[in-house]
């Protein structure tokens, strides 16, 4: 254990001594008249020299853990290593310095990338058409649900229920409600969809079933064919939450499993970095019968030129401004090109191998419910820790001291004291072994030591209770 994160008593940007700022472009101001009643009074933002700003944020970056720092097994988030060439290309001026409303003829490069990416995602998703517009997975879900609604309405049907398993990600029910649906949550059986519960939940009110496969426990829903048949027999649609696509590439596709709608999380499966929370990308794919509902515009190719096509008869319109997070789309395109058909399958195989290896090694020391093989991730039940007066939270914090990011904790809710571990394919056996060693070691450490962890991070355990009790969300609220 020789991890030590940088530790600075770094002031807030408002507390740094002011200096000579960089110059803004000079231009003779002839007339900057604005109406009297719109004149601004004060503007309390700091004025600093470039070097003090750069030092400040450089220090902050050193107090931040990223994939480039080390292992980041955050379940459901697919924190794989991000290739640097993707960053370089996405920084080219042909990507950054182009306005979305330039004439089609002046953006043939951007459109070609988008068109090709649409085609690639169609293949990977087993779908017929893709929109690149959604900014993230959750927005893909929202878009898919609006399409579901438009589809049923066009059929003259009013279906107001979305069914999802209790293990589903929080965005699924939240998106369903935003799209105006009632949520019907069904219990799981042995970690998978309980067919009986599903059968009794499905009715003529069911608009769609949202599912991820493998699910959030890392288990493949073996009954997927029966599930899709059941839903389709009732006139309902199937939505595939693509957050776990890393587990099936080259083996199967959502389309092949008979899903009608699927979103892709570019920042997970397709190796684009997570940016401290975003930006990501959440393209959405659909089967032929839903294509006409996709947002506008689509990118089309007429054999010689690419163009933006706004002519989609039943489009739901726009779900965000412009065409999506283009910069992220470029990175995903680069990723798929680098990997190719063979590489993507290998990604999946290695991700699944790594997860099962980690599970096999941890199984001897921790409760890991459900005995079958996993796909890309698995969930540890941490309730036994309680016998020693510990919680999953403590273990997670102690892992930070060993230089590992903690797994996703307390999710999914159906496993007590859950620890959701997703190693991804980009980690070596040595890293996985080191992680297991640390987990085991912590189990045998002094309880008080673990309870008070972490020690080696830039701050000690942070009080979320204090943050909520005394809400300070800005300098204004700090000073008041």
């Amino acid at each position, binding site marked *: 254990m020789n991890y030590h994160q940088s530790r600075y008593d770094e002031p807030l940007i408002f507390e740094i001594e002011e200096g000579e700022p960089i110059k803004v472009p000079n231009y003779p101001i002839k007339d900057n008249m604005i109406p009297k*009643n719109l004149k601004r009074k004060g*503007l309390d933002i700091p004025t600093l020299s470039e070097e003090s700003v750069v030092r400040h944020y450089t220090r902050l970056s050193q107090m931040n853990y990223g994939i480039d720092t080390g292992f*980041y097994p955050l379940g459901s988030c697919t924190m794989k290593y991000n290739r640097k060439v993707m960053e370089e290309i996405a920084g080219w001026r042909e*990507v950054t310095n182009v306005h979305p409303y330039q004439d089609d003829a002046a953006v043939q490069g951007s459109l070609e990338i988008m068109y090709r990416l649409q085609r690639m995602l169609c293949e990977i998703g087993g779908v017929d058409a893709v929109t690149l517009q959604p900014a993230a997975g959750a927005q893909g879900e929202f878009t898919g649900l609006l399409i579901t609604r438009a589809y049923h309405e066009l059929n003259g049907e009013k279906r107001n229920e979305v069914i999802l398993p209790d293990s589903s990600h929080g965005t699924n029910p939240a998106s369903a409600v935003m799209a105006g649906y009632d949520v019907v949550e069904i219990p799981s059986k042995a970690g998978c969809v309980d067919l009986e519960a599903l059968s009794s939940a499905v009715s003529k009110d069911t608009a769609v079933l949202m599912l991820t496969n493998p699910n959030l426990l890392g288990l493949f829903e073996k009954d997927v064919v029966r599930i899709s048949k059941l839903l389709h027999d009732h006139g309902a649609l199937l939505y595939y939450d693509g957050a776990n696509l890393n587990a099936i590439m080259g083996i199967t596709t959502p389309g092949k499993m008979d899903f009608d709608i699927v979103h892709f999380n570019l920042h997970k499966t397709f190796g684009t970095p997570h940016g401290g929370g975003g930006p990501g990308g959440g393209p959405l794919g659909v089967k032929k019968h839903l294509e006409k509902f996709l947002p506008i515009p689509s990118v089309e190719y007429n054999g010689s030129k690419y163009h933006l096509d706004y002519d989609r008869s039943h489009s739901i319109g726009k779900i965000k401004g412009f065409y999506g997070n283009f910069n992220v789309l470029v990175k995903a395109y680069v990723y798929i090109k680098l990997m190719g058909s063979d590489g993507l399958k290998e990604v999946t195989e290695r991700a699944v191998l790594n997860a099962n290896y980690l599970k096999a090694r941890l199984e001897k020391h921790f409760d890991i419910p459900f005995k079958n093989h996993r796909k890309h991730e698995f969930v540890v039940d941490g309730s036994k820790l309680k016998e020693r007066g510990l919680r999953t939270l403590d273990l997670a914090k102690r892992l930070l001291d060993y230089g590992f990011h903690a797994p996703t904790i307390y999710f999914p809710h159906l496993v007590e004291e859950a620890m959701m571990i997703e190693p991804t394919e980009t980690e070596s056996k040595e890293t996985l072994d080191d992680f297991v060693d640390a987990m085991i070691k912590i189990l045998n450490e002094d309880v008080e030591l673990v309870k008070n962890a972490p020690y080696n991070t830039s701050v000690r355990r942070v009080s979320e209770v204090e*943050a909520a009790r005394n809400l300070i969300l800005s300098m204004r609220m700090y000073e008041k």
Partner: protein
Amino acid sequence: MMCPDNPKIKEMLRTIGVSSVNELFSDIPREVRIERLNLPDGKCELDVKKEIEAILKKNKTTDDIVSFLGAGIYDHFIPSAVFSIIGRSEFYTSYTPYQAEASQGMLQALFEYQSLMAELTGMDAINSSMYDGATALGEAALMCARLSHKSEFIFPRTIHWEKKSVLDNYSKGCGLKLKEVGYNAENGKIDLKHLKELVNEDTAGVYIENPNFFGVLEDEIDKVKEIIGNVLFVVGVNPISLGIVKAPGDYGADIVVGDAQPLGNPMNFGGPLLGIFGCRKKWIRSMPGRVIGLTKDANGKRAFCMTLQTREQHIRRSKATSNICSNESLCAVATAVYLSLIGRDGLKKLAAINISKARELAQRIDGIDGFKAPLFNAHHFNEFVVSSSLDMDVVDEHLREHGIQGGIRLNEHFEELKNTALYCTTETHVAKAHDALIKALEELV
């Protein structure tokens, strides 16, 4: 296929207790299996780079053409230090700071973003980002419905048609009815009389954009506030203008939305953008999205963490205030760095330049026979509407031949604005760019 003879892989398989990787996939039914993905095989970095370079070369950048496009995405100067900071991989390869102790850097940077935007907008709290300005507006409408339990949301005709479509999609689910308030044909400002007619006991919220889509500064904002009274007041901003324009918090806004792309984020052919979302203290608990709070660590040292998470989807599921999970954090860091670098006086100056240049360009265009600019008799920021007695298709084609990209055409979405376009200029347009446009337009007469 992974090499099965690799000794490490063999050992891993042995530990798992299977003889091949395939066995790990044995639970996937045959009927859903595919042969292979029909994509070319992977290529080396060099080849991929060359291929993409060849494709992207077909783009024209702001280095190749003079562009007067704005309409929600703006070409502003970005200091190199911004890219240097957000290019630090400790930032860009991290994710949502669930483990606060290991993520203080991102948390503090986002707290600073929240603080800087709070100061600019006059709000108490700003979340750590929405996808973009359009979705931020959609979320604001939903928040008004949540807070007021009322059924109608009023928005101005003078917003981008894309935003209107997004607003429409966000409002559908909860059955919020949208009502459009018109604008004054002479000055492009909100039609106060019409607004008065629309506001009633069912009004959940009123949205005003300042400057509006036509670049017009809404200076009768006090009258708007008077009309709407206690109804929730949502204001959309262009954050650069706030260098000299009054903070919405100082004229009665309850919620502020907008897009902070102009503050340190490139145009990127439309994304990522950075949705601003802020509100007054009393509404904080109904806010969508992530927020970072200031707190202490176990030693009493100042620290930061995500807070009010019980509003969010990962805890609250179907009762969450929004479905947003991944957001645009890195763009928010870029904006914090940008504002720190530009500083108080820099931002004031930039705002002044953008007002002054828009006016100057409009006056020069107006001086050409057959053109009127600005079409609306008002103060403008950044952009303004040009109308012409000439066929705008001909104008655009002529400009194109001179390497100039004219403003975005409006007639398709505003049928009352025939032969018009929205022209934008910023500090990045050198004097020569204006001259080139004027010269080209003069040739048409």
